[in-house]
């Protein structure tokens, strides 16, 4: 890795993080969306502790899926509108790596808060200490996968009619494996079963996504900017 590339990656990441801090209402809206969706479920299905404990892992995970999908709107759209994205493509550094840096900054801004908040929301569903820990760990491994896959959908729908709902249609079916193994780990922990296997598969998905998704993202960005 040349010094120039390192510098470019650091600059992209730093810029996006700075933007996230300055436009923090964007990020906070997503975090509160996550909290509200999770909190609605007990109101809808009733407050039976046994039922809530069974539903908890799935509900928190599905809410995280929706929140991370909603967050995709801020990943490329503003940069696409003001021409920053064009400059990134023209920068002469490998676009997949630049895209990876953007997704990384995006995850730090919108994915990590969900991970940190999840144990609190798990308490609403009466998860025990081990369950809360596994929930946060599974989200810590899983939300980057969601951000990486989602970034493909976000790049494909740049400047397209009906962007938000369309992104959901493209991205949510691809989130299924992460949901199954992420929520599955928490359920297994709740039943005192082995959950290491689930987390390992989730980790494998993360590495596969890191290796493959940036290529698809950069192809999609180039198509959008043609």
């Amino acid at each position, binding site marked *: 890795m040349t010094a120039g590339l390192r510098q470019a990656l650091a600059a992209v990441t730093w810029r996006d993080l700075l933007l996230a801090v300055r436009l923090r209402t964007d990020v906070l809206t997503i975090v509160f969306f996550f909290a509200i969706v999770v909190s609605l479920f007990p109101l809808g299905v009733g407050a039976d502790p046994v039922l809530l404990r069974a539903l908890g892992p799935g509900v928190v995970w599905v809410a995280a899926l929706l929140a991370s999908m909603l967050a995709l709107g801020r990943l490329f759209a503003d940069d696409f509108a003001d021409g920053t994205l064009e400059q990134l493509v023209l920068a002469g550094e490998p676009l997949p790596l630049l895209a990876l840096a953007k997704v990384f900054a995006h995850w730090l801004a919108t994915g990590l808060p969900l991970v940190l908040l999840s144990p609190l929301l798990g308490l609403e569903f009466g998860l025990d200490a081990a369950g809360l820990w596994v929930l946060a760990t599974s989200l810590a491994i899983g939300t980057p996968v969601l951000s990486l896959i989602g970034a493909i959908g976000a790049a*494909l729908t740049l400047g397209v*009619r009906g962007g938000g709902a369309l992104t959901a*249609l*493209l991205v949510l079916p*691809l989130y299924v494996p992460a949901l*199954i193994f992420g929520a*599955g780990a928490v359920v297994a922990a709740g039943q005192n079963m082995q959950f290491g296997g689930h987390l390992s598969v989730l980790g494998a998905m993360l590495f596969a996504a890191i290796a493959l998704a940036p290529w*698809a993202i950069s192809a999609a960005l180039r*198509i959008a900017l043609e």
Partner: protein
Amino acid sequence: MALNIWKYASPQTFFPLAGRMIPVFTVLAIVFAVVGLYIGFFVAPTDFQQGEVYRIIFIHVPAAWMSMFIYLVMAFWAGVGLTFNTRLSSMMAHALAPTGALMTFIALWTGSLWGKPTWGTWWVWDARLTSELILLFLYVGYMALAAAIDDVRRADKASAVLALVGVVNVPIIYFSVQWWNTLHQGASVNLTRAPSMAASMLTGMLLMALAFWMYSIAVSLLRVRAIIRERERDAAWLQDSA
């Protein structure tokens, strides 16, 4: 005379070829369907476990096969279109998608019609059913993306990237759903039928599979001709032939 297959990579030469092929595949589809249905309804014996209900497999199984196979073919043409920038390949991918979605829908529908009398329920979260449902969502997403982008070339390329991402994900989805299912519920429902299938049942099913195959080809060719007409409407050759 050497046959130059690349000649037909151009919409202009493919358009009349497709027009000549459609009647052939239509007739083949009808013949296979008539023979297949005759064997299915009159020759094949009644199943000793399931009774007459099992006969829906003559529709269900071919549709399920085609639903998966068409996605692969669609992704193949989308990939070719993306790599070699050939217009016809992308048109072919778009032409296949609705047929694939239809097959997925038929497979789900007939599956649930079969499930009600056999399992006593319209729907179970069985691994195969779930992955077929997700496949339907993938088809719909592909078509929605292609329809949402006004610029034709961008729509081709963007949906091609999506189709390729889908192809990488389909096996992952399939295996994760399978694992999820075995973790959550015991083997309450087993889709695998008795291994010994009467020869006439198998013949009927294979003939119906061929019929579905021919139908898919005929309909896709018809649709690709419609797409060519739409996209090349200003081309001189099309105005001459029309």
